[in-house]
């Protein structure tokens, strides 16, 4: 979990870092963009401002020029001195009057007038920009303004404005130097740009050359105040227009508003997207981790179950040479690892202990307790102690440090395989079902305390006598407590009925019960482990045993002995047994190199059958490992070799071989007749 949390933290931090980086980049980009946009706006604003100021100045000067013309029309004298006076009066620098040919006929400047040896200044021929003024004579224009520029005649800076004189067909022209130009027009520039706004909160300021405000967008009526260049909080440019220093300026804040809005909006959107992505990724990762944990847990539980299953005996028949009893057991585990087990082992040369147990609780703790209980019982039992004492010692050991109060119910019996006598202890377990002399019933006894509950508990030993053909069936409560969808339990009565129904079969009993329990469950989940064990007592067999030499005489002797030992066995069984035995005898006598060999015949009952054990001290030879001859060839291709072994394998069951103490040991059995 700690790992998971730190994983989440790292994830969040890296997402946050990526987010901040992207925002910084956006902010930087838009800062540069907004600066560029601001200067673009300033430049384009200047174009309009220039036009506006020029128009304004032109209009003012045209008006002044018209006023001069008016004075002349009223008969103002036009000699040099008078015109100089008029110029001074009208606040202009010079006044010239031209006739229709473009010659200056009157002027306030001596140089323009004709003198001996020098013609008058002619607009058409003077060169430079002077000729532009002729549009008043040649065209339809009634007024014309030249831009403020360096005059060609005397090199001084002038702005010339002319108006047509209808009375003469010529025109009157005024010229203004910088000072008079500004003096005339400054009044019309006052507050000219007061209502103009540039880029939201920016504006235009027009000043005089001496730095006095004419028009200020921020504070109207500030004319005459001293102006200073804007500081760094503005994007701004300065340009002299018609001699008026003009500023277009935009506060940086205002230009940045768009950037800030953009970056803010981007941040919000990106942030939301990132949060969403982070949540999504976090969800996916945690789902993945959860799934991994689940898989790991399932794997470990599977391993626990495997270990548990491997700990209990699962090879059947467990004692192939033992004819006095059969034992079969099965454990069908529920989904979860549980605490059922069965066990069986010899506790002496003629005593075998068998048990079924159920640990309380489920899961790994129950499984571990089960392993402990199983090992404890076995280790005490194999010291050869009496079964009641085994339980008492195992119980004391299990109680030691059993803080979880887990306990185990056990039914255990110890069979004397020679006599069929069973001593048993029931530690709180379900009563087994017994078949005694053909009668099937529950073996009820007063149960003792479960194992692991209380140290020092006493365990009552009960006795039971089995005759050949009798059987005992042990199970755990998973069988009788399996319920169906309607909640009905399988129950003791149904179990007894099922066991009675297939009393004559051996391993078939266990699978029959499980199938019947499943049929009852009808799809409902298996609630608990179902564990079963059946022990069938067959009794000590009638035995014939004899040793022979590897000669044809002894082979004949062995044949005769076997024929005698098989008296009473149905003919078809006896005959095929004779054939099978003859094949093995012949092999030993002819090929084994043995110096002696033995034949043992066991007649068993319940079910009735014969088992032959044939041993020899010859070279190791496992007849079962030989490949079967091809029995489909035609007569010419057939060989006789190997057919004997084939006959043995096909007619006897079970057939086993093992090599022990320098002897080949072959067993073969066959059942016959009524199996009860």
């Amino acid at each position: 979990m700690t790992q998971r949390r730190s994983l989440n933290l790292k994830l969040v931090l890296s997402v946050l870092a990526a987010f901040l980086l992207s925002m910084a980049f956006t902010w930087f980009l838009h800062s540069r963009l907004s600066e560029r946009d601001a200067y673009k706006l300033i430049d384009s604003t200047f174009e309009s401002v220039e036009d506006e100021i020029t128009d304004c100045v032109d209009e003012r000067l045209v008006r002044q020029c018209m006023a001069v013309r008016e004075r002349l029309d009223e008969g103002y004298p036009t000699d040099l001195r008078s015109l100089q006076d008029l110029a001074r009066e009208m606040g202009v620098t010079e006044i010239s009057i031209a006739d229709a040919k473009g010659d200056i006929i009157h002027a306030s400047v001596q140089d323009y007038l004709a003198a001996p040896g020098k013609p008058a200044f002619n607009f058409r021929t003077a060169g430079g920009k002077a000729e532009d003024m002729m549009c008043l004579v040649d065209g339809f224009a009634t007024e014309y303004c030249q831009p403020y520029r360096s005059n060609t005649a005397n090199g001084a800076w002038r702005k010339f404005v002319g108006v047509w004189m209808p009375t003469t067909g010529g025109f009157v022209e005024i010229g203004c130097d910088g000072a008079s130009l500004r003096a005339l027009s400054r009044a019309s520039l006052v507050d000219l740009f007061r209502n103009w706004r540039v880029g939201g909160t920016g504006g235009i300021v027009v000043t005089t050359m001496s730095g006095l405000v004419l028009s200020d967008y921020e504070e109207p009526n500030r004319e005459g105040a001293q102006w200073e260049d804007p500081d760094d909080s503005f994007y701004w440019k300065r340009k002299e227009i018609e001699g008026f220093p003009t500023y277009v300026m935009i506060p940086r804040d205002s230009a940045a508003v768009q950037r800030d809005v953009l970056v803010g909006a981007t941040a919000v959107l990106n942030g939301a997207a990132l949060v969403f992505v982070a949540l999504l990724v976090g969800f996916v990762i945690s789902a993945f981790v959860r799934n991994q944990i689940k898989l790991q847990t399932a794997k470990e539980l599977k391993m626990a179950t495997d270990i548990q299953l491997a700990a209990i005996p699962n090879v059947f028949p467990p004692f192939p040479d033992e004819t006095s009893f059969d034992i079969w057991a099965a454990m069908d585990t529920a989904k979860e690892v549980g605490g059922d087990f069965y066990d069986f082992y010899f506790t002496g040369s003629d005593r075998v202990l068998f048990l079924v147990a159920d640990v309380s609780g489920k899961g790994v703790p129950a499984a571990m307790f089960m392993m402990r209980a199983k090992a404890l019982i076995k280790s005490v039992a194999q010291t050869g102690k009496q079964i009641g004492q085994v339980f008492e010692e195992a119980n004391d050991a299990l109680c030691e440090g059993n803080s979880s109060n887990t306990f185990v119910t056990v039914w255990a019996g110890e069979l004397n395989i020679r006599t069929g006598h069973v001593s048993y202890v029931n530690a709180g377990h379900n009563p087994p079902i017994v078949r005694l002399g053909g009668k099937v019933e529950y073996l009820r006894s007063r149960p003792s305390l479960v194992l692991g509950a209380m140290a020092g508990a006493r365990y009552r030993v009960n006795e039971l006598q089995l005759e050949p053909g009798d059987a005992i069936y042990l199970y755990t409560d998973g069988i009788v407590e399996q319920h169906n969808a309607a909640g009905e339990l399988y129950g003791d009565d149904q179990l007894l009925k099922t066991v009675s129904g297939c009393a004559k079969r051996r391993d078939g009993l266990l699978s029959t019960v499980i199938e019947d329990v499943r049929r009852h469950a009808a799809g409902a989940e298996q609630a608990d482990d179902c564990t079963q064990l059946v022990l069938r007592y067959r009794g000590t067999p009638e035995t014939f045993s004899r040793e022979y030499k590897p000669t044809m005489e002894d082979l004949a002797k062995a044949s005769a002995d076997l024929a005698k030992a098989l008296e009473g066995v149905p003919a078809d069984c006896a005959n095929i047994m004779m054939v099978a035995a003859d094949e093995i005898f012949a092999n030993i006598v002819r090929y084994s190199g043995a110096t002696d060999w033995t034949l043992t015949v066991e007649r068993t009952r319940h079910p009735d059958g014969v088992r032959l054990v044939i041993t020899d001290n010859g070279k190791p030879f496992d007849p079962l490992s030989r490949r079967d001859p091809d029995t489909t060839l035609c007569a010419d291709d057939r060989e006789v070799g190997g057919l004997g072994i084939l006959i043995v394998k096909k007619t006897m069951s079970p057939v086993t071989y093992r090599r022990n103490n320098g002897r080949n040991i072959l067993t073969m059995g066959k059942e016959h007749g009524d199996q009860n």
Partner: protein
Amino acid sequence: MEIKTNTDGSTLTISVSGRVDTVTAPELEAGLKFGDATQVVLDLADVPYMSSAGLRLLLTAHKTMMAKGGELKIANIQPTVKEVLDITGFSDILNLV
């Protein structure tokens, strides 16, 4: 083991009585003499069982008769003998009647 022979025209009938196994097979082998007979009937009505030692003799006899253009018929086989012949595939080779 008892072996009786009876000739009826070109048909030779050999009746065997007793088990056929490793011990008795040499006796049977000695008794399976067909002379000039082209039709031989081996009557096994009184043979309760036969091991592979007997099978070898049956196969040899069958091949001998076929080689001289004759025929060997095996009659009245008992269940255990039949079982052995079936397992070994000899039922398909021999003429069982």
